[in-house]
């Protein structure tokens, strides 16, 4: 058992850390305040291959692994939760579904431009009445000649409005329940497809979460991803991978808040001495750091299991559950230690606390994670 990152992973970590500090952190406050999608950062990430890290070079990817992707997510999350989720949904969910279920032709046509930095991707599963109960899909797809016709809507879709291609889930046979769901590749410029107004969110405010509207959207039947009726499995498998990415984002948020609060308590003086000399501060920091380290071990080990081809549903759920709750705990304690200053939007911990909350909710709530974990124990 070896808990040291390989030299290539360490060098990649240095790269992501430097990129996060130089390119992402300086924008984080502004894009949160103005709810502006950081298109310039996304372009830089595309150019550097950051949006195709775990995928094969033959599909335009970097030929690295999930651990490398996780290291990027952690560093992005450390300085900007919004930028991290843009990369995660693109990589884990959109590219992940295409990589897992796509035909060779689909991979060349869609996965390659997504991985090589030409396109940005998105993933549409959630609907107004199908959140955690993802099987309750109302969007319908009907085969008409050589085309599927999609009607319905999706909500809270990350990268909506900026994505070039969407992986969309829709019912092809309502009578079959979750076995009647199919996955489709929908280019953004398809007639009948439109993006609704942006939702106003508590955190990750620089990422988009709009409604997607499908009005007689006709796509060629070659754009069916996987077989008809296999969409639910495709979504769940992509989400397993996605949860490791979200766990890494949460880990980064926790680390970022911890870094900020450590610097603050050394500087801030009350009662004639720095806050760092108070035992309450010291003990709180110790608890924060210990949880962050525990989260890191869970997240990295889930990524390594993924790379080794092990079953990862439970490991991914454990990593996401613990890392996201750690992010909420640590960011909350960071605000508390910083007192009034921590509550001010001038300091990043307030933003990190708002960003952390969503990691307990999206790509499977903490409650769903507990269901996955206990389900394995009790089966």
């Amino acid at each position: 058992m070896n808990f040291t990152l390989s030299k290539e992973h360490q060098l990649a970590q240095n790269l992501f850390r430097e990129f996060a500090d130089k390119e992402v952190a300086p924008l984080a406050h502004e894009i949160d305040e103005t709810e502006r999608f950081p298109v310039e950062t996304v372009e830089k990430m595309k150019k550097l291959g950051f949006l195709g890290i775990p995928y094969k070079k033959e599909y335009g990817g970097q030929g690295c692994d999930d651990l490398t992707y996780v290291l990027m997510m952690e560093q992005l999350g450390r300085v900007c939760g919004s930028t991290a989720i843009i990369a995660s949904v693109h990589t884990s969910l959109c590219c992940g579904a295409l990589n897992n279920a796509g035909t060779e032709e689909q991979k060349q046509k869609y996965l390659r431009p997504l991985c090589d930095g030409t396109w940005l991707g998105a993933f549409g599963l959630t609907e107004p009445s199908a959140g955690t109960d993802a099987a309750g899909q109302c969007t319908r797809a009907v085969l008409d000649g050589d085309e599927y016709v999609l009607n319905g809507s999706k909500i809270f879709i990350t990268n909506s409005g900026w994505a070039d291609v969407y992986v969309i889930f829709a019912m092809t046979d309502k009578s079959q329940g979750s076995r009647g769901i199919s996955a489709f590749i929908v280019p953004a410029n398809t007639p009948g497809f439109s993006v609704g107004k942006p939702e106003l969110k508590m955190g990750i405010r620089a990422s988009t979460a709009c409604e997607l509207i499908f009005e007689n959207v006709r796509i060629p039947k070659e754009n069916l991803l996987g077989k008809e009726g296999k969409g639910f499995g495709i979504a769940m498998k992509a989400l397993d991978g996605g949860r490791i990415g979200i766990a890494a984002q949460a880990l980064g948020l926790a680390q970022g808040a911890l870094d900020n609060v450590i610097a603050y308590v050394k500087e801030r003086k009350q009662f004639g001495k720095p806050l760092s000399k108070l035992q309450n501060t010291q003990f709180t920091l110790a608890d924060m750091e210990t949880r962050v380290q525990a989260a890191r071990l869970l997240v990295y080990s889930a990524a390594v299991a993924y790379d080794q081809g092990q079953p990862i549903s439970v490991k991914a759920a454990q990593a996401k559950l613990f890392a996201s709750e750690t992010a909420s705990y640590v960011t909350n304690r960071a605000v508390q230690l910083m007192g009034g200053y921590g509550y001010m939007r001038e300091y990043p911990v307030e933003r990190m606390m708002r960003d952390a909350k969503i990691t307990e909710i999206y790509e499977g709530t903490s409650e769903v994670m507990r269901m996955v974990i206990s389900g394995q124990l009790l089966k």
Partner: protein
Amino acid sequence: MNIVVCIKQVPDTTEVKLDPKTGTLIREGVPSIINPDDKAGLEAALRLKDQYGAKVTVVSMGPPQADAALKEAVAMGADQAILLSDRAFGGSDTWATSTVIASALKKLDYDLIITGRQAIDGDTAQVGPQIAEHLGIPNISYAEDIKLEGDHIIVKRKYEDRYHIIKCKLPCLITALSELNVPRYMTPGRIFDAYRNEELATKVWGVNDVPVDTTVIGLKGSPTNVFKSFTKAPKAAGNVYKPDTAEEAAQIIVDKLQEKFIL
């Protein structure tokens, strides 16, 4: 075109601390980086490669761990890495170092050699020009801009108070300033290639791989002896006088020199 870039691995700090007892650098806990001037030189080479097409070889002399700097260079886009590493090279001063590097370069095809101006740990700025002397090729120091024109290179050389535009026939050696450019990021895939693709593996050359006279390298072959190293005591702020005339200025200087019993 073949471009060779010489790089050095240095501690990542411009405030290197010295051990007061031994007079040597305290390297513990200080991460290592590619020397900033050298990294700018590498970026310049990679831009020439992007623009005109070239094979870029990076060369470093140092202990085995200096390979990390070469890996980073390959991850930025260098095509080949050579590490000159041997106990016989240890303790070399600038002259012995440039002797070893120039000997190694004689084994390589090169049209252009780029080095950094100086390393942030030693600050001598000697090794680059010395390599050019050993090889008998022209040297242009302090390059702030580099262009290629046929078989000539056009370099904008920065002096303290002026620039020189110099045109030089290849092959030649250029020393680069960190102001030359903003070095590119590595890419994740290139990082993996640097470590995992055997074709990109660093070639390690020891004393037997380099045609060099062993009496002029290493600690024994180095003409420089470091007598003492110490951390400079901070200087107090000086006095600023604003005399109206040259005579007045001269008088102030004479008074001060007499005050210190120098005159």
